[in-house]
């Protein structure tokens, strides 16, 4: 009997290799790798804040991974999760600040606007792709650099709050537009949304006609078209749904964590989500374990920033070490 697939982690060999590589780099920089790993373990496992923080981060990581996995099902590359997340945050803030609604309706409008922002941002590359103008892998990536500028425009300009003159941010959104959190933690309802979206994807991919047709299109677009499947519709819708997933992640950052639009909505969740989806290798349920892994990595960054006085960007080195190790000793290593 095999363990369920969502429990799959990268093989132990890859993890050891990655930790050794990263440790060597820390040591070369004059830091103490063993102390660093010890600090991380105590923070993540033994402190309430460190432990719950994993679940705060898993939500957006699952959503941005879905942003990649849904289009990947029909054979499209969505590298634009980060930009779509920013647009989701932007649209959600707009709805939360200005929609003439109250109570749960305002929250619903905020959530929908977040989805719509991400979806629209993904729609542009999708339409360019089916029109044969430009490849979506390029356009989604480039739009990542545009979306934060749109956010910056709003928080430096029309939506700027007078509360802080030095720090650009929007007005605070109404309490009714806030996603609920667990008391005394930062764990919020975005995690439940992520779990629901993931479960929905698993169901649609594995049990429905749409799932089979998406697989057919992803595996052999020509044959799918010859069999009369609406290939272009699928490409556009899958991309928009993926963008919408990333948009929901951005919405949750604004609505649950920040309570307003800020310039740094995400510490690179969109890029990490791409790696999560890639390591899950087309197996949607494995996104759970991979998102947990990347939540830990990002916690490592937080800890090392404080204890070893290294910039947060060292997590990029750790991510690279893990990718490299999985490529070397992972299950697919020999085939590649």
């Amino acid at each position: 009997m095999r363990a369920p697939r969502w429990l799959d982690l990268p093989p132990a060999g890859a993890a050891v290799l990655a930790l050794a590589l990263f440790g060597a780099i820390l040591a070369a920089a004059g830091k103490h790798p063993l102390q660093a790993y010890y600090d991380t373990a105590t923070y993540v496992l033994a402190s309430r804040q460190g432990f719950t923080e994993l679940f705060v981060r898993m939500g957006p990581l699952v959503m941005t991974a879905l942003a990649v996995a849904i289009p990947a099902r029909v054979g499209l590359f969505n590298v634009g999760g980060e930009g779509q997340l920013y647009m989701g945050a932007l649209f959600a803030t707009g709805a939360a600040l200005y929609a003439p609604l109250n109570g749960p309706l305002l929250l619903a409008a905020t959530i929908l606007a977040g989805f719509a922002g991400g979806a629209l941002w993904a729609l542009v590359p999708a339409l360019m792709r089916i029109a044969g103008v430009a490849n979506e892998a390029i356009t989604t990536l480039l739009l990542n650099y545009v979306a934060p500028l749109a956010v910056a425009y709003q928080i430096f300009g029309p939506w700027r709050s007078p509360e802080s003159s030095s720090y650009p941010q929007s007005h605070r959104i109404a309490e009714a537009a806030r996603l609920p959190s667990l008391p005394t933690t930062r764990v919020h309802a975005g995690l439940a949304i992520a779990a629901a979206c993931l479960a929905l994807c698993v169901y649609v991919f594995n049990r429905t006609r749409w799932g089979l047709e998406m697989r057919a299109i992803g595996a052999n677009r020509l044959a799918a078209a010859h069999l009369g499947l609406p290939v272009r519709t699928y490409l556009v819708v899958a991309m928009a749904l993926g963008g919408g997933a990333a948009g929901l992640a951005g919405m949750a950052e604004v609505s649950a964590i920040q309570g307003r639009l800020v310039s740094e909505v995400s510490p690179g969740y969109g890029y990490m989500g791409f790696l999560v989806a890639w390591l899950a290798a087309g197996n949607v349920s494995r996104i759970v374990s991979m998102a947990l892994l990347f939540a830990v990595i990002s916690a490592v960054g937080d800890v090392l920033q404080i204890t070893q006085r290294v910039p947060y960007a060292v997590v990029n080195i750790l991510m690279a070490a893990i990718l490299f190790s999985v490529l070397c000793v992972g299950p697919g290593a020999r085939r590649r």
Partner: protein
Amino acid sequence: MAVPLIEARNILKRFGDLVANEVESFDVRTGEVHALLGENGAGKTTLSKILYGFYRPDAGEIRVAGTNVSFASPADARAAGIGMVFQEFSLVPALSVLDNVALFMPDLPRVPDRRALRVRIATAAKALGLELPLDAPVAALPVAAQQKVEILKQVLAGMRVILLDEPTKVLAPQECSGLFATVASLRAAGYGIVLITHKLHEALAAADRISVMRKGRMTATLAARAATREALLAVMFEGSPPQSAAAPAAQAIGAPLLQLDRVSTSGGAHATPLQGIDLGLREGEILGVAGIAGSGQRELGALVAGHERPRRGRKLFRGGDASRWTAGRMRRAGVGFVPENPLEAACVGELSVAENFALGERRYASGLGFNWTRVHDDAEAAFARLGVARPSLNAPVRTLSGGNVQRVVMARELGRAPRLVVAIYPTRGLDARSAQAVRDALRARASEGAAVLLMSEELEELFELADRVVVLRSGMLAGEFSRGSYSIEAVGAAMVQSDARTALA
């Protein structure tokens, strides 16, 4: 007896569990044409690729002029004087014949003396009776001449043994005699020729010895003089050559079903645009389409099936204008599509046989999913009707053999009881028995009132099945023949000649 130029002994080659080759002995002698005859998938190509160093045998030995060799790559084989001409030529289209030949010469000096080269190449060409315009770019030559350039390349590169892989496949019938004349002069000049073919008459006409392969084994090697058609058929098919189930019955030809009205298409990167095609197809009629490869057969099939749309002109289906219909709409209106490359164009290798049956079929919908019981029942019925063995319905199509993939597509497309079947080279790659099953199924479907648009590279197959044969040349209709006026010569002439006025008047 002289030592053979090349000799293979006790060759064993496996691909996974499949024994692709188990050959005790095969050799080619000086001044000999040795035909390697067998059905598609019999192992001819595998054996020739072993001789050419493309595959390493798992066991056995290869001797060149009596010496044991071990080829790590085709370069080693070429260094030992073993050359091969593939079905896809390896020529640089923009360069001249002279340059193409020169580029392949292993002893080409860094700074060639072009005049000396020209004399050398022209002399060799003349000795073999190859009349080639040495300065013309290869792209400007007809396929038959390009093939001669390939052969000339082998000769000037110092090859002593030349393997020809299905050389007549790309030629029109009357071009074959030119090829065989070249083969005869190579033989007279002392070269050893391996002629790989699945056509009996070619082996009988051109070869000194004929080796027959079946299922990876060498079943017989005979002197061509002593061989007869019947004897070879018996060896090829284990004593029971495939026979058509029924002589072509006089089918009731019904109402017009499909009408192409001066249709042109724009073509594409690798497509031959259709130009002003006027064509009608009636219920119960089998319309054969002949033409040398790349004359627009594929494009015609794609147009009728709705994969491409006309740029000019109209396509009428059952009286209505179907010019703008999508592939899905044509399918739902009753068009079945059997392409030559089913794994690329008609099914999804990653999905199972049953899933491939269900794709795009609204009648199997059940809730958000499928009624799999119904899919399985229908699939089983479809295979039973086609009269072929059914592969496991849960196996991914990718894991099936090429013939089985074709059977899956055939069963699915005919199982939908189509009004019109577009079949593009449907028997290519099938063994004789499966090919006959496909032909019988197409005919049975026509006798039930469906129209069939059949592309084939075998004129015999078209003549056997079709009520009418049209010829495509460079995307245009170049001739039309009705049953009774079929002849290889006349149809072949329409396939190539630019002034063929055969039956167009």
